[in-house]
Each structure stands twice: as structure tokens, then as C-alpha cells.
């Protein structure tokens, strides 16, 4: 096999997600009354990037064969923190952003500490920490409100040179600054190894605990970027329970569409980004086809159900029935 074939085989999920997204986006823009214009792209990008951050955060944990059901609540909590701190002079704003990101990292570190060093199952542990995060968010913002540095917000949710959505550029920068270095580091490889065969990785001397801990912390950081961006997008903070739950759910959907294996050890955050963009576009298709807003939850649910059922096609390749039971 040639070199590039290995690469394609490894990136199949990501490429598939990219293909789905491009197809969906083509259908979307060709049916949109305004057509393929910079404004349509900007709106779609802003909404997609929000989910893309949360989906990347979910990916990092899923790669280690865990799951983070608190990711939506970290997103909501950082949104509330940002609505209180990211204001004032440029210096104050910068410190505020830093504080928001630190909050995200701390949330991720708490999850990681409980799951890795406390040895609790990620599902139960993160449902419980999610309740804590939501409680703190509610303490900060009992009622929706707050404000944000609007100049910065408008810059980051607007367009660069009137064409390219700034949010996409921001996403790209963060991928280059957070995901790519992590993927190439020893810790990143350790996270993949821990996800695909923890016992073997442990025996080979891979620092699995540190690797998983780093993955959880970076996951919190990425969720905090999402929360920050939500604040830029809405100008307010709100401790919304339903929205936190919805983002957790959508992040899992995006991860699945993005070709990240929920059993761990396979997939990439790039795939999850395309999964998130595709998922958002599918949701928006309803509006261009003029179906009522009431149908949107059902439509998204059915898409999710179909997406996760597609994984069942792997069953046809199984020759030994014992392989059903992983």
C-alpha cells in the first residue's frame, strides 16, 4: 500500500464528515433565499463554531475512552463567568478572558481528577460534576444578564475583509494552538493509547494517567472557548439548564458524525469540527425548507438516531459472532 492510502484509511471518518458537511452546506445555500453570500456563511459559521468548540472538548475525552456529560455545563458556566468578567478596558478584558479559560481548565481538571485519580466511572462522575457546574453558574447568574466587551465581540463574530467569517479564523487558530500540538505530543499519543488499549499502554510505560489528565484539562479549556464565544455571540450570560444539556447531547452527536469512535482511541478533533458543522447545517435545513420550528427537536433527534445507527453497518463485516460482545 502506498503512503497516502494509509493516511486515507486513518482519516476516513474525518473525510466522511467533511463530505457530509459540504453536501449539506451545498443543499443549504442553494435553497437559501439569499444564496451563497458572505452573510449567510457568517451566520452559519458563528452557530457552527459554538458547537465545534464543545464537540472538540468532547472529542478529547472520548479519545481516552471516557465521556464527558458535563461539557455542556462547563460551556454554560464559562458563559456566565465571561458575561461578568470580559468587560472594560482592553487590559481588563484580557484578564477576564484569561480568567474564563482558567475556570474551564479547572472544571476539566476536576473531572479528570475524579475520573482518573478517584477511579470513578466517567458517566456518573461527569453527570454529578455537571450538576455542580450548573449550580455555580446559577450562583453567578441567577437571572440572565451581564454584558461583554462589545467591540471585541463584534470583531470576533464579524467578517475579516468583509468576506471571511472571523469565527472560523478563530477556530482555526485554536486548532493550531491547542489540538495540533496536543496530537503530536507524547501526552496526546498517550491519550490515544490509553483509549485504545489501556492495559497494554500501561504495560508499555506510557504515562496514561498524565495523558488522560491533560486530555480532560484541555477539554475544559476548549469548552471554555465555546462559552466565551457564546458570550460574544449573545452579549449576555444565562445559566440555562436546557441549553447545557442540549450542547452535551449535540456534542456527542457531532463526535459520532465526525467519525470519532466512542470506544476510544480513534478519531480526531478535526472530524468532530466537521461533524458539528454538519449537524448544525442539518438543523438549519429545516428553515430553508420552511418547516415549523416545532419540528426542529424531532428532526435533530431523528438525525442523531440515524447517525448512531449507521455505526451498526460494521456488524456486517463481523465473521465471528463472539465479536458482537466487545
Amino acid at each position, binding site marked *: 500500500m502506498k503512503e497516502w492510502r494509509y493516511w486515507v484509511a486513518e482519516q476516513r471518518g474525518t473525510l466522511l464528515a467533511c463530505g457530509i458537511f459540504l453536501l449539506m452546506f451545498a443543499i443549504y445555500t442553494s435553497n437559501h433565499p439569499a444564496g451563497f453570500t458572505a452573510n449567510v456563511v457568517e451566520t452559519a459559521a458563528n452557530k457552527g463554531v459554538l458547537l465545534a468548540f464543545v464537540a472538540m472538548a468532547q472529542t478529547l475525552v472520548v479519545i481516552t475512552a471516557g*465521556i464527558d456529560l458535563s461539557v455542556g455545563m462547563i460551556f454554560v458556566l464559562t458563559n456566565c463567568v465571561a458575561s461578568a468578567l470580559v468587560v472594560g478596558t482592553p487590559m481588563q478584558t484580557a484578564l477576564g478572558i484569561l480568567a474564563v479559560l482558567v475556570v474551564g481548565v479547572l472544571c476539566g481538571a476536576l473531572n479528570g481528577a*475524579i475520573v482518573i485519580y*478517584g*477511579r*470513578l*466511572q466517567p*458517566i*456518573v*462522575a461527569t*453527570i*454529578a*460534576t*455537571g*450538576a*455542580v457546574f*450548573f*449550580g*455555580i453558574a*446559577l*450562583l453567578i447568574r*441567577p437571572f440572565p444578564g451581564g454584558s461583554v466587551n462589545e467591540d471585541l465581540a463584534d470583531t470576533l463574530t464579524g467578517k475579516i475583509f468583509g468576506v471571511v467569517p472571523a469565527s472560523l479564523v478563530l477556530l482555526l487558530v485554536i486548532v493550531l494552538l491547542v489540538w495540533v500540538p496536543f496530537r503530536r505530543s507524547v501526552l496526546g499519543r498517550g491519550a490515544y493509547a490509553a483509549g485504545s488499549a*489501556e*492495559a497494554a499502554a*500501561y504495560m508499555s510505560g506510557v504515562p496514561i494517567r498524565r495523558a488522560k489528565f491533560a486530555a480532560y484539562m484541555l477539554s475544559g479549556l476548549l469548552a471554555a472557548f465555546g462559552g466565551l464565544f457564546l458570550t460574544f455571540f449573545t452579549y449576555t450570560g444565562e445559566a440555562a*439548564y*436546557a441549553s447545557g*444539556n442540549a450542547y452535551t*447531547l449535540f456534542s*456527542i*452527536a457531532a463526535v*459520532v458524525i465526525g467519525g470519532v469512535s*466512542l*470506544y476510544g482511541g480513534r478519531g480526531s478533533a478535526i472530524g468532530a469540527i466537521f461533524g458539528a458543522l454538519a449537524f448544525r447545517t442539518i438543523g438549519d435545513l429545516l428553515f430553508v425548507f420552511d418547516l415549523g420550528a*416545532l*419540528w*426542529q*427537536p*424531532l*428532526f*435533530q*433527534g*431523528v438525525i*442523531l*438516531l440515524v*447517525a*448512531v*445507527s449507521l*455505526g*451498526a453497518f460494521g*456488524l456486517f463485516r463481523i465473521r465471528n*459472532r*463472539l465479536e*458482537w*460482545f*466487545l
Partner: protein
Amino acid sequence: MSDMASHGRAGYLPGFLRRADPAVLTAFACIVVLLFLGSLYSRNFLSPEYLLQQLKVASFLGVIATGMMLVVLLGQIDLSVPWTITAGAMMACAAAAYGPVGTALAMPFGILCGVLIGLVNGIGVAYLRIPSMIITLATNAVVQGLMVVYTGGSSPQDTATPAMRYVATGSILPGVPNAVIVWALVGIAMVFLLTRTGFGRTIYGIGNRERAAYLSGINTRRVVLIAFAMCGGLAAFGGVLLAGYASKAAQSMGDAYLLPSIAAVVLGGTSILGGRGSYLGTVAGVILITLLQSILSVMQMPEAGRQIIYGIVIVAMLLLYGRTPASR
């Protein structure tokens, strides 16, 4: 490991304590501590009326957690419980609008809807081999979508039937609420199912190692399917009871039951990895969670503080005895 540890203590412990699971004992000890703390705060806390009231509130969670326990024993999880509860409640109330026949069939119809949701979950998990966490999240979203379309996004106008209200709030025996009797019946049936039938033993077997159970000639996929259907049915039954209690169904009335139902099962010593756990533990977990919620609301703790304390207590208790063995 834990077996050896309990053998070491066997010499000086009375028989019933020796057989008991340390997790269940810890859970009951925590209940005693909570009751003690509550009685320090208010003298009414130990009165029979208050305790019976707590038991009544606990019975709704108890019915729901019973179904969750079945699924957790298999090593799976059911995250579609919130909207299964809501769907059961809404469909039962909706059926009540269709004349006397509808009124008579309201409760079975609500439960049937839950069983159908459970069947979808079960087919996904058992036959399509989709991780239960994912397929149940997806069905939860689909059911939510269906209910939003059905109700138009607001709370439905239908009300619960008198029978539903009677089952949830009446008392057929003087002093004992019906809901508690219902929970007791469900619990007895579940204990019988788990300990005295082949189906129950199979559930433990699959939870320990599905491959081995399959090689022993068990139709493991059918058992998983039935367990998920029962979980859906019990969750919907819990929803029907809740609708009877509040005399109507409401949007997202089930959201408050996902974490408590999982927490009750896990705090009761059932391993989230499956294959280990007793119903007595789940009973302890349900009472524990209900008492905790009750104390927090008696103290007039705001919602924010309640969520924080609640999460911390669950993590803390799990750290006490819910840890998985170290990878050595």
C-alpha cells in the same frame, strides 16, 4: 479482593452483617446520619407523618430507579429516562381525553408507550450493538421531539384520570400512601425476578461477561431487549404516577429524575459496570437521595446551592465505595 476482605472480618460480625454488601451498609449508615442531621435542624424530621411523606415522594423515584437498576446490572445505562417519564405521563393524560375507554386504558397506554421506547433502545443495544449511552441519548432526543410536536411546545391541557390520582395520592390502607404500596409491589416483583428466576440470573451473567453468557447458550440479545423494555415501561409508570400526583403532565417533568435515578442505583452499591448489586441497595439509594433532597429544601437552600451540594455529595459517596479497582 472484597471477598477476601470480608472473610477476614467474618470472625466477629453477626451473620446478617457478614452477608451484607459493605456498600449497602454504608448507604444505610448515611441514611441514619442524614436523619440525625435533619433532626438537629428540625424536630419534625423524625415524626412518622414526615417520614411517610418522604417515603411517598421516594416511591416515584423508586419505581423509576428499579428499571434503571435492571439496565445498569447489564452493564448498560438508560439516558432516555427523562423523556420516557414525560412521554408516559403525557400519553396517559392524553388517553384520558378519549371518553370512558380512554380513561380506563390511560395507565396501561402510558406504560405501553414507555415499553415501546424501551424496545427501540433494546433493539439498538442488543441487535445493532450501539453503545447504550448513545442510542438512549438519541431516543431521548427523538421522544422529546415527538412530545414537542404533540404538545406544541407548551404544557398539555389534559389532566390525569381519577384512577391515576388515586394510585399516586390515595391510601387504600389507612395511613399508608398507595404510592408506597405500588413501590413495594414493584420492588417485591423485582427481587423475585432477580433472585428466583432464570431471567434474573441471566441478567447478572450478562452483566459480568456477555460473551460467557452467550457461549453458555443464553439468548443474551433477547434478555437485553426485554430488560430495556422493562426499564422503559417502569420509567413511564413512574411518569404516570407523577402525573397522578401533580394531576397533570408538564414539559420536561422528567429532567429532574435522570441524575437521581442513576445515583440511587449506584449509591446502592450496584456496579455501573454491571453484574453486581442488590435491590436492597437500590432501596437504600432511593431513600438516601430523597432524604438529601428533602433536607436541602427544608433548609430553604436556593436551587444553585442545592445542585452544588447534591453533586458534591454524590461524588463524595461514590469515592467512599464506588471506585473501580486500580489498573495494576
